[in-house]
Structure formats: C-alpha cells, structure tokens
C-alpha cells in the first residue's frame, strides 16, 4: 500500500503525494514541534522534510526502515539545521574570538505558543524536561516520543550511537535529579516517587 503510494509519488502523482503527506503529517509535525517548541519553526521543518523526502523518495529503502521512521529521521535532521542556523546566523570574526572560537551551544529561548493542559505528574515531568540541557532533552524526545532506535537517532543527529546513548543516560539523570528536588520541595515525597529511598 505505502510502497504503491511511494511509487506513484516518484512518478509525480500529486494525489498519491498528498495521501503520503496527510498520513504522516501528524507524527512528523508533532515531533518537530516537540524538538523546536515553536510552531512556525516546526511548520518550516515539517515542510522542508516532506519536500526533501519527496525529492529523494527513490532513495528510500523499505528494507532499512519504515517510512514513518525515515521521515522522522529527516525531520529531526531538518530541525537540527534550523536550530543551527538560528543559533549562528552569522559569525563575525570578532564574535568568534569573543566566544573563544566555539559558537554558543544554547538555542534561543522560545516562548511556547501552544498552551498545554497537563495535570499532576505529567505537568511536573514536562516542566522538568524544559530544564534538561537541550541535547539531552532532544535525545529523550526522540527516544520516548519519536520511538527512534539509537542507530536512527545517531543518523538523525549526526553523531555516534554511543554519544546518543550517553545523551539519553544524562537526560535521565538530569530529569531524575530535577524531579526528586521538585518532589522534596513541593510534595514531600508523596506526589512522585523517584529513585530508591535513602
């Protein structure tokens, strides 16, 4: 079915392309939104990903990954490009020297433009997640929301499997620390059980 749609899209069939787009848009856009937490940027990344995918459809190999996974890897890579460009729109030599030759690693702060309704533990987890360093946060999102495997994450993020795994581990440690502190402060250990008792 999906292979059929892919073949028609390669041949230039717009109806098939639209079906492919509509079937996968929600997952792709949601992942982009989670990674970027900005609606406009997520829309750009999603569109980029589909345009790229349609142009490179002949390269898709169903034996290597599901189509949805392939799209997720592409959109992740687009998100990364987008962030990188926003982060370093232009180097001047002076800025580079002042920055000690390393560009700043932090993404610009975005005001969330979607009001979320979360309760209890989910609210706590989501808030804590915002304080996890960006690279680890993205790794957690790709793993637990995108459902990508470590090799797929490595491909999407352009780094080694070992590095992405370290980011997930570090993300877990950071998150657990934040939640534990939160639990101690606000809920006195009743609301959220983290880690083993001392």
């Amino acid at each position: 079915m999906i292979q059929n749609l892919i073949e028609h899209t390669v041949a230039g069939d717009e109806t098939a392309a639209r079906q492919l787009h509509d079937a996968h848009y929600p997952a792709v856009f949601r992942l982009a939104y989670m990674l970027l937490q900005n609606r406009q940027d997520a829309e750009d990344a999603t569109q980029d990903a589909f345009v790229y995918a349609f142009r490179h459809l002949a390269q898709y190999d169903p034996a290597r990954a599901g189509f949805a996974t392939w799209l997720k890897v592409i959109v992740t890579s687009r998100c990364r490009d987008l962030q990188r460009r926003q982060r370093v729109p232009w180097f001047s030599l002076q800025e580079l020297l002042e920055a000690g030759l390393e560009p700043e690693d932090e993404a610009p702060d975005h005001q969330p433009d979607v009001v979320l309704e979360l309760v209890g533990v989910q609210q706590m987890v989501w808030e804590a997640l915002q304080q996890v360093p960006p690279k680890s946060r993205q790794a957690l999102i790709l793993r637990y929301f995108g459902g990508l495997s470590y090799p797929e994450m490595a491909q999407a993020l352009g780094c080694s499997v070992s590095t992405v795994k370290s980011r997930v581990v570090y993300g877990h440690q950071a998150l657990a620390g934040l939640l534990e502190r939160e639990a101690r402060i606000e809920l006195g250990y009743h609301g959220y059980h983290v880690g083993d008792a001392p």
Partner: protein
Amino acid sequence: MNKHLDDRQLLSCLEDDLVPRRREQAEAHLRTCPACRARLDALGRTAANLTTTLHAVGEQVPLAPARSWEAVARRWQGERPRLPVPPFRPFLRHAATLAILVLIVAGLAGLLHTLAVTGPALPRATPTPLPTPTSSTSPSPAPGPLPRPDPDRLAGPVSILVLGTDGESATSGETDALMLFYLDASTRHAFLLSIPRELYVEVPGYGQARAGSVYGLGEQDEALSGLRLAQQVVSATLGLPVQHAALVRFDGFVVLVDALGGLDVQVPQPIEDPTFPDGQGGYAPLSIPAGRQHLDGALALRYARTRVVPDPGFDRAFRQRQLVLAVHERVTRLDLLPGLIAQAPALWASIAGGLETDLSLSDVIDLALLANGLTADAIATASLDECCTVPSTTPAGRRVLLPQPDEIEALIEQLLEEGQ
C-alpha cells in the same frame, strides 16, 4: 559480579539491549542487590512517565495538515525544473565541492592568521590584490592586524566566480573548472552553477574563446588580470552581476593539511581503488584500511577524490564533509591552538600561494563559515550543459559549446527564483 550497575548499564537492562553474557551478569547482580533493583525500577518509572507525558503533549499540538500540504505541494512542484536541467557531470561536481572545500580551508587558515597578529609581520602573505573597481568595498587587507569584518557587508546577494585548477594546468593558463557560487545571505539561498570550459564565449578584444582559456588571456594582458577578465566575461554571458572571483589551486589543500600535521578521520569501510588516476594517464592504486586513520595532505586529497563508494552512506560527499570537519576540529582544538598560531604565518602563506582572489581575507572567512553552515541540500546545483548550449567545432577543430542566450536566461531566472 558484585560491582553496582552504572546508569548506562541499567538503561541497557531496561531496554533489553545487552549481549547475552552481559545480561546474565547484570541479572545475577540485580538478584542480589536491592539498591540496583530499586534504581532500575525508578528508571523504568521515569521512562514510562516520560512516554505518557510526551504523548499527552503531542496530542495537544494543533495540526494544520492542509496548510502544510499547500506549502509542500507548491515547493515540490516549483522545484521541478521547467527546463530539463541535466545533473552536474561528476567531474564538475567533484571539482566544485573541492573548490568550496579549499575555500573553507582557506577561510580557517585566514582565521588562524588573524589570531597570529602578534606573530611576525607577513609581507604579501595575503591574497593578491586585484585592480577591481567593483570591489572597492573590500580592499585587500594589509599585513599584520586585519580590518574587522563587517557582518553586513556580505549580507546581500553575492556571486563569486571560482576557477579551479590542479596546478599543472595553471602554468598553461587553462582552468579546468569554472563555477559560479551565488549566495544570498539574507534568504540563505545558494546555488552553484557549473560552467563548462568548452563554452564558447565572447571575450572583449579577443573575439571568441573557450571559457577555460579566458583566465590565461587576461593574464597575458598587462592592463588586465585573468580573474578580472573571467569575471567580466562570465557576468556578460550569464547576464548576472559577478562581484568577486577566486582562483583555487587544489595543491594548496595538500600543503595546508601537511602544515596542520595531517588529519585524523574515522574510515568506516576499507577503500580499494586500483584505478585511481595518477595524472599521467596511468593508475596510482589507492588503499586505505578501515578504522581511525591519519592522513597526510596528498592522501587526504586522494581520499576526497576517489570514486570508489564502498557503501551508499560513504560516498565522496560524505568524505569531503568528513575532511572539512577534521580540518575544523584540528584548527579549533584549543590544545593545538598555541602551536598552530605560531605556525599560522606559514599556514597562511601556503594557502595564499594556492588562492588568488579579490575577496578580502575577512570576506573569505565569513564566506567560508557561512558556506560551512549550509547543508549540501541547501545549495542548488546546475550546469550550463546541453540545456543551454549547442555543441560545435571551431575552424581550428576544437570542440566547443555555443551558448544559447534565451535558455541561459531562463536557467538563471529559475535558479534565482528557487530561493524565493
């Protein structure tokens, strides 16, 4: 196994991602260690909470599939060429990426040079200045402290003619690759247009000539320079302003890598290329084993140029990106920096010998960094090939391509529009 499991091992346990022997060891430890069991449970809970939280958030993200499809369809359709644009011929694409690679490397070397302002003064170590009235905004830098780059200076669209030569052809005045690199920094739109050296162009004062010979003609003329003439001719042929020009010699890349003490790259799969050309019509077999390899300049260039593709993900573009990153890593590693700064005058001199341009040093640095930030997909590529030329033969019997002005105009328009 009495040692506690670390977080990485616990995650592997949770995800059942251990080889059987390790899993048995971990399970044996977990049976006897309540602390590790508790940590594993906690990790599992966090993972589960994270999954449900993220999906709850995902559900609340407002979707707009119709709007997305409209934009995708417009761009997908828009990118279908109105004219059949033939793909870059492999040789030209290869020459083009190498030229950009060298330009990036030159930018980094220039950066080093500026860091070495406390080092010895460098008479004439900067790129050869040219008498170019159009580039009055970018005077050639004086040796020693350099003018501070103005971030806005390259902010508008800029076209740079890049001539590539392998060094041997430079003495004959023939350039073996001509490329126009167009970059609009404000829209981040870039394209790379390859101009065949057989293109038969109108050269003021010389009648018609092959594009590859124009540089040489200009060099013979005392009142002109090769770059200046090539820039004028290409600008007139394409109907597009060309602000800058650069001549890049690939052997400059070799010298630079050697000056950096070679590059370390991770070679994912062994490379065996028994038919690597030796430049004299014969073969110079190339063999690089897999694993972390230290490449000197000549080997790095061959690594970048070999046509052997052991795996689809390990093609030439991949290797060239690897080399760019390796150079970048080498140049910016802080522990290497003091030594490199001390060497910078020699480095910059080696690159300046392989690069001739009317761009100022700071322009090259800015361009190189900007080009470094562009992904390969962000750069459209096209070639003035059969789409806009007609093959012919000169009275002297040389094969040439006659430019077709209407088709060229349409192609340029199309390339410019893609950025809209």
